[in-house]
């Protein structure tokens, strides 16, 4: 082999080696850039998810209700009766959907009066939550169903606290809310210790009972909107947003018995 040919071969080998080194450098750069960028963004994602979750939890902690009330019992049909022992009349029935803004307004204006009437033995209160929004679009429909099914998992002693929490944290109509984990957490916040509670809420075990209560409200009782309140079977109208008028209607009903 001539000297020129040997030099050419050496140059080619050198060039080849340089190409290899350049390729290895590119490989290292690829791994560094891709894995580094993914790791940094992944860290940001993890921190953001956890921080947002903790911030969300602080905003929505249910508190046990400690105001006036009468003993609570769960009926076999899923309704909750609140009445002092021996008080069987007049019967004040409250049909509500936890996703319904008018029900939230009713609870804010008149809910305390309803509890007071039961606490003072002036009425037997029956809460009949149901799934009014079955024909609505999601998330209104699903929010309504999840909350109604969850409320039926709550033992009677915690009912008022949970019921109030659902209205307190009612999602704005049309937005997502009543997340399953929140529904579970609020139950624990207000003192539900039943080990089956979480599974009951998560699996919507009470959905068949919600359906039955909804059929009862819509078909048997002819309820067409919420809140609907019956006093001894008579549908109340103006009294719903007027606590004094409600008290008078109850007093009148009691007087007539």
């Amino acid at each position, binding site marked *: 082999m001539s000297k020129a040919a040997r030099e050419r071969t050496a140059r080619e080998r050198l060039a*080849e080696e340089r*190409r*290899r080194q350049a*390729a*290895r450098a*590119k*490989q290292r750069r*690829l*791994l560094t850039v*891709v894995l580094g*960028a*993914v790791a940094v*963004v*992944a860290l940001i*994602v*993890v921190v953001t*998810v*956890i921080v947002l*979750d903790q911030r969300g939890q602080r905003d929505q902690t249910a508190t046990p209700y400690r105001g006036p009330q009468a003993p609570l019992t769960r009926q076999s049909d899923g309704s909750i009766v609140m009445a002092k022992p021996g008080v069987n009349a007049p019967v004040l029935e409250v049909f509500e959907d936890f996703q319904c803004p008018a029900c939230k307004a009713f609870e804010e204006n008149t809910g305390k009066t309803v509890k007071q009437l039961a606490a003072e033995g002036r009425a037997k209160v029956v809460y009949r939550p149901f799934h009014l929004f079955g024909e609505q679009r999601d998330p209104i429909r699903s929010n309504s169903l*999840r909350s109604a099914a969850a409320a039926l998992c709550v033992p009677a002693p915690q009912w008022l606290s949970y019921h109030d929490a659902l209205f307190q944290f009612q999602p704005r109509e049309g937005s*997502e809310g009543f*997340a*399953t*984990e*929140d529904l579970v957490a609020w139950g624990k916040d207000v003192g539900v210790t039943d080990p089956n509670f979480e*599974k009951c809420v*998560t*699996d*919507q075990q009470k959905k068949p009972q919600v359906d039955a209560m909804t059929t009862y409200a819509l078909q048997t009782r002819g309820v067409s909107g919420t809140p609907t309140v019956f006093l001894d079977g008579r549908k109340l109208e103006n009294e719903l947003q007027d606590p004094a008028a409600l008290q008078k209607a109850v007093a009148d009903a009691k007087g007539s018995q």
Partner: protein
Amino acid sequence: MVRQAEVRDGENGYAPAPARPRWFLPAGWVLTLIGLALSVYLTVAHYQEGALVCTTTSTVDCHSVTTSKYSELAGIPLPLLGLAFFAGFAVLITPAALRSAHPVLRWGRLASVCVGLLFVVYLVTAELAILHKLCLWCTGVHAVTVLLFVLVLSDEFRRIGSVD
């Protein structure tokens, strides 16, 4: 031959792709089809709550996960996003797309699996750190996504490491 390849790819001005290992295409397609199937199932289960079959223990509970607020992002159900991801990725690994050396396809593959991997990080964080529940079907999708990330990254690693 080299000249022919240069002329052929010269239309776009990109270097030709060196040959891939034979297992790349079947591996990519098997993973993508598994991902697609799982996403279709989870999408159906998202809209028909009764369709989800899953064992329930203290840590494994699909329902808790698929009905949590983390099952949607900006109002879009995550199984639907997964479906879009695997359908898009299937297009990116068609033989024609793999033959092409066009950078949009190469980097599209890499970028999509990186985004997929970040979604896995997001969802696993939600499962482990917040919900304290695991959804086995979702874990299947996560595993497929991680394997696709490894597959695409190793393919790109091999490509830029090739001297010829």
